[in-house]
């Protein structure tokens, strides 16, 4: 991935510093709020506390309560009022505290956020961002580790993205806030504290594009958010065994970048998609289905899905058994008939 200088109207570049993904998101919010006073931020605990993951740390002190504030504890209320604010031309960025706590807002998301532009023939647009700290692997008790992306990606009208690293986190959040369409911005909780040296502002690939994270010739691994690292680990391990793995970070879940993924798959002729969510009806199904539809005659083997099991997310002490690991990825690749 290349981090070039930005097109965003943000403060001048500074020397590279180690930034966590949480820090990069914080900086993106800060810079977006500074650049555009239509950007407002609210949700549960985003004010003095700075969010339970500290993504909004310090922003209320800097921008005041009229730009960032704690709302009543009601997710439908948060998303529903954000719709109204966006209708008035604001650019609200709201936070759902965890995937599972976005569910009370489901009707507002599906029946309004996703449909408003279409219902009104483009007259009424909703430039808003719904941030969702997502997925698991943080030892959270029940309802704190759901993966909700399949619900959003199955909903026409929503744009759904998930960064896997600090640079993308910054760049994609800025782009999401600048977007005239609503964006479901998913933040993998287990990556919040991952670090990278960054010079801000940073602009990475457009948020609707997948990116080849590592080149390879034998297999394409498709990951997003937390599973990009899993894919890279698998690629490292496979290299020792003489298997060359290409790793693609999908970044944009909806739309899907058929071009980048297709090019990779046509090169390697084998692909697997990795996600934390359960397999049945998960986002990987769409990936597998469309990659197969579009590249069937280039495929030497079925597109595999290396995912969580088809069960509710487990309790903290059992989650290690549920999560897809590099080992599981490699074991899955072994199930292919490699002699084909």
């Amino acid at each position, binding site marked *: 991935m290349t981090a070039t200088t930005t097109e965003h109207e943000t403060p001048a570049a500074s020397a590279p510093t180690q930034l966590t993904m949480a820090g990069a998101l914080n900086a993106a919010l800060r810079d977006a709020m500074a650049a555009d006073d239509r950007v*407002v931020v609210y949700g549960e605990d985003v004010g003095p506390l700075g969010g339970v993951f500290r993504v909004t740390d310090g922003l209320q002190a800097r921008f005041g*309560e*009229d730009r960032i*504030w704690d*709302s*009543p504890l*009601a997710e*439908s*209320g948060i*998303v*529903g*009022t*954000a*719709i*109204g*604010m*966006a*209708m*008035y*031309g*604001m650019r*609200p960025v709201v936070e759902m505290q965890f995937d599972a706590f976005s569910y*009370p807002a489901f*009707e*507002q998301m599906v*029946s*309004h956020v996703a*449909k408003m*532009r*279409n*219902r*009104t*023939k*483009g*007259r*009424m*647009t909703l430039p808003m961002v719904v941030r969702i700290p997502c997925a698991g692997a943080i030892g959270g008790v029940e309802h704190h580790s759901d993966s909700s992306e399949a619900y959003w990606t199955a909903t*026409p*009208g929503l*744009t759904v993205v998930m960064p896997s690293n600090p640079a993308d986190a910054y760049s994609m959040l800025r782009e999401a806030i600048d*977007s*005239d*369409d609503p964006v479901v911005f998913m933040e993998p909780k287990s990556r919040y504290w991952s670090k990278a040296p960054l010079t801000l502002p940073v602009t990475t690939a457009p948020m609707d594009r997948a990116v080849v994270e590592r080149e390879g010739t034998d297999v394409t691994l498709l990951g997003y958010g937390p599973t990009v690292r899993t894919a890279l680990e698998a690629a490292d391990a496979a290299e020792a065994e003489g298997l060359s793995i290409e790793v693609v970070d999908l970044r944009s879940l909806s*739309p*899907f970048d*058929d*071009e980048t993924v297709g090019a990779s798959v046509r090169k390697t002729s084998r692909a697997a998609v990795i996600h934390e969510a359960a397999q049945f009806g998960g986002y990987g199904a769409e990936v597998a289905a469309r990659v197969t539809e579009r590249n069937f005659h280039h495929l030497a083997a079925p597109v595999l899905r290396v995912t969580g099991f088809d069960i509710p997310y487990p309790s903290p002490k059992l989650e290690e058994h549920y999560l897809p690991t590099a080992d599981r990825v490699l074991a899955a690749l072994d199930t292919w008939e490699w002699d084909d």
Partner: protein
Amino acid sequence: MRTPARWRNIGRMSLDVEHDSVRTLPSEKPIRLLDNAGHAVRGAAAGGFELPELDTLLELYRRMVVARRFDVQVTALTKQGRLATYPSAYGQEACEIGAISAIEAQDWFFPTYRDSIALLTRGIDPGDILQSFRGDWHNGYDQHAHRCASQTTPLATQALHAVGLAHAARLRQDPIVAMTYLGDGATSEGDAHEAFNFAAVWQTPTVFLVQNNQFAISVPVSRQTHAVTLADKAIGYGMPGFHVDGNDVAAMYAVTRAAVGRARSGGGPTLIEGLTYRIESHTNSDDPTRYRSARDVEHWKRRDPIERLEKYLVSEGALTESLRAEMTDAAEAVAAHTRDVMTTEAELDPLELFDHVYARPRATLLEQRARLEAELAEAATHAGAAAPHAGAAR
């Protein structure tokens, strides 16, 4: 954002705290400025509100007459199969027109499917209002031009939009009020609660009108609440609540007008219940004989909001025959126009289905669009027709 005094520093104070939250029980008897015989009501029963000026009442009358004529016309057209569905507001004109007349051009309105006549009163063309019920497109008017959100079906959801918009306006220091209508049934939804609560906590300039027409499709309001009035809910949010005779346009106008003024001057939201009755069926596909008696309907027909005001205006000598004729003409003109637009089939372009889903076209949608285009072209060829999108006409 202002912290209500009630809670200020609660940590450090004793449990005895001051507050500026409203905690007055709405009157159990609905506020009324004109009784059913068309006589002015004064004193306690009027809840401290004044009967509007005659000019205002005449204008409200005119609007109700036009609205009624429109509504009857649309119901007739629906029976002729010209509309996919139409939820009539027959009998609810005092609520619909009284409240919408209380906001200004710069204010916003968030209606439900039931509130077509309020949109008409707001100046939207019948053809644009009815595009959705005719089945052409989900919404047919320009939201921004009229400052009217699209008519919302998922119940109570639009109330939150109204609160958000009002809050945005307040943050921008624009003196704008957002008014939203809800049905009695819709008050049971979680979103109604969240809307009332966000509005009260944020003290947004929002006016909530609950049109208690006593039914949610077939379900009577007794199955929606155990409270004495729906306006009682206001107490739980620390906002003013008013229980109003929803067949008295004078009261509806006066109370909503006061709430709008309060909201505009920073006084926060108000919850108003208008007690009325839905004379027509829920929509054309409903069968009200299954859940209510003709006697009930007759009872409420005798409480007609238009006749009530008419009696008053006539007794005051304000409604002259020439004025009445003028109003009837205006109403007939609207009806005629409605007939015209609704009997002319709109040219629909199926390919437009793909145009408004996202700001930037997606590759997959363009592929799907191309496929449909090819299909339509082929259909046109087969049909021997010259028009490229023959599939659209039906």
